[in-house]
């Protein structure tokens, strides 16, 4: 008989690397069953991400929103606040930034960009705070509320794009006017300046989680809310503040994407990245440096997938399949870092 037992000395990192490798192998088998050559698929993915300076820049550019939203989600997850609303918070951030950009009085300046930044943070933060408030007040499941708020945000953006903010100069094409050039993020080393903000945020979130009192309170609450309350922490305040910060960071990602890449607001711009960010935060165990690495790896799947669709007509959904399989394997493999499997009879011999 096999018996399982809890263990405490989990070796996370090498276990994760092994499960990613197994997952890539399994995904390869799935790809092969579907009639494509997995080696070619993987090679094309890497080529599409690294083959030229331009592709590398594209890959890094795709990392930026994933990284920032991964950080925002991680802050919430650390508190055991299952915020799956990064997508909606991203859109709300972009909406607020666009509102500022379109209604700027006088010539736009660096101050306007700063205003957009603050507006985006607040909009994304409040979108997440709604779920935080409902949880603290009535115990409403934040998972479902944040999810529903995603859909509401996307429909709102559609409404703005097709009706309210539609650019009259676009000749009937449903499009919101482009940002003035001064409000588009400048590129630094060929990639829009969002990458600098992303790195600053990575450091900030690491600092928040590991060096500041709030970060400590977040971890205690994440481990056990009751403990936090008995220790005299103001759990409501922590919950609200953390959801504001987490959602706000996701909102910043929306502003950066709108200003740096799209130069406008549209209802396609997040395209599921908010959901990928959740997978990233979880895989990285909410550790900012790990989020940086994992989001870069996931952007290879995105960039490589998009490249492959054009170069080989292989559907870009391949990236999603691989992503899903990797995630499922990691979730399954955690068992082996938390439990050990023991053969029953062997133990009896030891007892003698």
């Amino acid at each position, binding site marked *: 008989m096999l018996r*399982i*037992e*809890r263990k405490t000395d989990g070796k996370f990192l090498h276990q994760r690397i092994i499960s990613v490798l197994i997952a890539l192998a399994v995904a390869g088998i*799935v790809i092969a069953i*579907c009639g494509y050559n997995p080696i070619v698929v993987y090679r094309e993915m890497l080529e599409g991400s690294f083959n030229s300076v331009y592709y590398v820049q594209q890959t890094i550019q795709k990392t930026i929103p994933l990284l920032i939203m991964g950080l925002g989600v991680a802050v919430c997850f650390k508190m055991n606040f*299952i915020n*799956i609303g990064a997508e909606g918070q991203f859109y709300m951030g972009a909406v607020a930034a666009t509102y500022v950009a379109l209604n700027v009085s006088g010539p736009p300046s660096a101050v306007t960009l700063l205003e957009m930044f603050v507006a985006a943070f607040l909009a994304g933060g409040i979108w997440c705070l709604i779920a935080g408030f*409902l949880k603290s007040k*009535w*115990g*409403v*499941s934040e*998972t*479902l*509320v944040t*999810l*529903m*708020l995603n*859909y*509401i945000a996307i*429909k*709102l953006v*559609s*409404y703005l794009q*097709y*009706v309210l903010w539609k650019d009259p100069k676009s000749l009937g094409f449903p499009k919101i006017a482009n940002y003035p050039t001064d409000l588009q993020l400048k590129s630094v080393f060929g990639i829009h300046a969002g990458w600098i903000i992303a790195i600053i945020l990575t450091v900030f979130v690491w600092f928040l989680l590991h060096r500041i009192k709030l970060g400590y309170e977040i971890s205690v609450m994440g481990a056990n809310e009751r403990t936090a309350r008995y220790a005299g922490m103001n759990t409501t305040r922590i919950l609200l503040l953390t959801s504001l910060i987490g959602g706000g960071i996701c909102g910043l990602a929306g502003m950066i994407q709108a200003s740096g890449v799209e130069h406008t607001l549209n209802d396609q711009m997040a395209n599921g990245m908010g*959901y990928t960010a*959740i*997978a990233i935060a*979880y895989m990285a165990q909410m550790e900012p440096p790990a989020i940086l690495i994992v989001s870069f790896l996931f952007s290879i799947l995105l960039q490589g997938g998009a490249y492959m669709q054009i170069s080989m007509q292989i*559907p870009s*959904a*391949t*990236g*999603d*399949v691989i*992503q*899903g*399989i990797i*995630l*499922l394997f990691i*979730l*399954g493999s*955690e*068992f082996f870092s*938390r*439990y050990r499997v023991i053969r029953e009879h062997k133990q009896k011999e030891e007892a003698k």
Partner: protein
Amino acid sequence: MNDAALFFQLSVQLGTPFLLATLGGIMCEKVGHLNLGIEGMMMLGSFFGFMAGFLSHNPVLAVLAAVAGGAFGALIYAVITVTLKGNQTVTGFALTIFGTGLANFLGKPYSSQIMDSTVSAALGVHSIAGLSKIPFLGIVLFSQSLFVYLSIVLAAAMLFYFQKMRFGLAARMVGESPGTADATGINVDLYKYIHIILGGALCGLGGAYLSLVYVPYWQDNITAGIGWIAVALVIFSGWNPVKAIFGCYLFGILKGMAVKFQGISLSVLGLKISIASQVMDMMPYILTVVVLILTAIAAKNRSVGPASVGKSYFREDR
């Protein structure tokens, strides 16, 4: 009168994929597993049903393939959350990414292909002789697809199963207190596996209704978020399969309104009001949030859901 009947007929059709998915969710949560993978399992069922129907022209094979597709997704979930005790929320989430991705990936060659008409006709509208002649209700409820009848029958059967039958009661015990169930000799893991897989099969059916009858051609993301709303509808219905019928049809009505009132301007008291379709589309989600709040307030003092939902059961912890 006839217009109203046709509107409610449409609402029932729109509510049916919600209903099948919600029943699947209830099945799973009754044994203590929160499955956010409903959307993914629906996509798998939807695609495999479509592929089988398209290639074989056989409605029975199409339905079986859809059931198998949903069950396959559920099996992955069960292995990770029951046997390997993985995090249920994230696993369900990963299952949705995987299921949606796989269905879109495999479905690429079938994009915009129309379902074989013999299959969609065989599963489509069959008026029930006699009953369909009842004014109003005859049109709304008894001139419908086989999926609609099946979903109602399944809901009633599930209620009976969980209220009256030995296995159903044992399953509830597993969901409420796995430790107690284990002590009385119930094979906890087996019960969990069976119900999770049955739940996946129901979700697969819900997806298949879309691809085989309602739409019926293949398109990316054909389930369009229905599976996520179903997660909320499970709570809304209070884990009661028959109440789920009403909850889901209510959502069908909302969706129907979004379809019917698209871009129409109404004049109310001399004021011209035009509601953009995007705003109408928001309504089901806003209603879901309201419903979640109301159920949470109502449940503040008593727990309505199975007590162990979301927690892994580890025997040694008893």
